[in-house]
């Protein structure tokens, strides 16, 4: 290897490492803040490491606000959303991918074009409907929107791509034997689709876990708050409880990061599929 190639490689790595540090520094700062005392949080010039590592911020994070309750609410909404999405989306995707009927393509184009629809357009009438149905301050507006809202088009599209990749021959013989479409779907196709279902399940979970705007619209009663809107309680009129707030933000984020490390490959795959036509 000659010197100029070596030099370029080193330069590439140097840039990548520097950028990487810039991406990681906020995480480091977040974590280190959570172990500092109030005095050390507000010290100039900055002190990276706490002189004494304390857990008080985490205890306060959980006690200052109804943290457990908000976490529970968030989990319930996220899991209900995922459950509906992984049951409904593959059904629809199967119809679009494997059953040839008149008007299918037109419906498919209609579905894809709903991806462009801004949620602001549907948000007000849906709020009016949920209000009339007496469902405000419950999980249902958020859960039903996750099942049937714009996200559905996205999920169906993703699963359909996956179904299209399954060779026709695989289901041909079952069809000749007279198996119904639903049987073929549930016994042959669906078991194969597990990786794709995992992907949309993950994205749905992430979306529901971090959702802010929806929660802001539908959850006014503090009993029903999720973590996304509950965190603002650390912010008071004149002061912010930075230690506990950062600890709470950490607790809010950590489950997602753990999840990511478990299913990293699925995750990256899912994202790349989304981008590829």
């Amino acid at each position, binding site marked *: 290897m000659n010197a100029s190639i070596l030099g370029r490689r080193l330069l590439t790595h140097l840039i990548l490492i520097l950028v990487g540090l810039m*991406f*990681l520094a906020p995480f480091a700062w977040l974590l280190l803040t959570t172990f500092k005392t109030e005095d050390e949080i507000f010290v100039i010039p900055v002190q990276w490491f706490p002189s004494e590592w304390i857990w008080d911020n985490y205890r306060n994070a959980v006690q200052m606000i109804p943290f457990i309750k908000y976490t529970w609410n968030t989990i319930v909404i996220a899991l209900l959303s995922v459950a509906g999405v992984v049951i409904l989306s593959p059904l629809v995707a199967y119809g679009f991918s494997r059953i040839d009927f008149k008007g299918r393509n037109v419906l498919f184009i209609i579905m894809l074009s709903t991806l462009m629809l801004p949620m*602001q357009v549907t948000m007000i009438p849906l709020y009016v409907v949920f209000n009339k149905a007496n469902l405000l301050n419950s999980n249902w507006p958020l859960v039903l929107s996750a099942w049937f809202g714009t996200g559905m088009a996205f999920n169906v599209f993703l699963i359909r791509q996956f179904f299209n990749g399954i060779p026709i021959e695989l289901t041909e013989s079952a069809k000749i034997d007279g198996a119904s479409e639903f049987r073929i779907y549930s016994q042959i196709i669906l078991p194969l689709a597990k990786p794709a279902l995992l992907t949309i399940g993950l994205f749905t979970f992430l979306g529901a876990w971090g959702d802010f705007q929806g929660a802001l619209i539908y959850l006014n009663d503090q009993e029903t708050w999720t973590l996304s809107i509950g965190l603002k309680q650390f912010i008071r009129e004149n002061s912010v409880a930075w230690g506990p707030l950062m600890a709470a933000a950490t607790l809010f984020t950590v489950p*997602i990061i753990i999840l990511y490390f478990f299913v990293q490959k699925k995750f990256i795959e899912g994202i790349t599929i989304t981008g590829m036509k």
Partner: protein
Amino acid sequence: MDRLKLHSGIKSRERKRLFIGLMFLSPWIFGFLVFQLYPIIMSLYYSFTEYNMFNPPQWIGLDNYNEMFRDDKMFSSLYNTVFMALFGFFPQLVYALVIALLLNQSVKGLSLYRTVYFLPTLVPAVAGSLLWIWLLNAQYGLVNQMLGAIGLPEPNWLMDENWTKPSLILMGFWGTGTITIMYLAALQEVPKMYYEAASIDGANKWHKFWHITLPAISPMTFFQLIMGLIGSFQYFSQGYVFADSSSQAIGGPGNSILFYAIYLFQNAFMYLKMGYASAMAWILFIIVLLLTLLIFKSSSKWVFYGGEK
């Protein structure tokens, strides 16, 4: 006679397939009718009414739309939104591409780098925004402490109306990991032989980038442009949290981070001006449609689809 029978047999089979197909599609059909079509129509209707949820909607014709054109706050929210798209989204797109190009140099430790760049996109919007509010704290924040250490000016990021949008843009760069990963995947799909052929013809690095790489990944750029612009016009959570949490009124100092979607939300759910907010939503819809159409129309000039795949 037989042909007629056969024909009706095909017909009935066709009808059966249609029925089965629609059965499979029924969750989407329900969702489309109830969660999209009905709300679209109602929102158009509300946009011609005055409606506060307590009284039935009152027809007022085009008044809401006329009011929009006299509403300075609406225009400044539109300005802020366009600003974010131009100076936030576009530079972030270029930045993500540059990082992806570096990662595509078949570097060692690719998966580690990729994880590092991707990690920030996993942080929930509210948690990330609160973290950045702390990082950008004028006195005790890490960013200003670093800037101060190397003798650079320390802006009052969150309170100075000239710096609030740059604050959000800075945070946006932190979250570009998804675009980077998508670009990287697109780059890895470019056939190696193109570059080899170009090398034989004596093309330099810059030529190769301009004439091979960029056209080859243009479908990805097309996708990112559409998704990014649609997203930019609905920019909400980060702006809302930034304004709300740095003990400011909604909109931040001088309404400098009052974005279109935030002002719309405020009209709908705080002022209960549902009619006006619906008119805003429709204008947003039209803007998004026009932009998408524009990108689609122009795409024949700059998006190239490869032969195979």
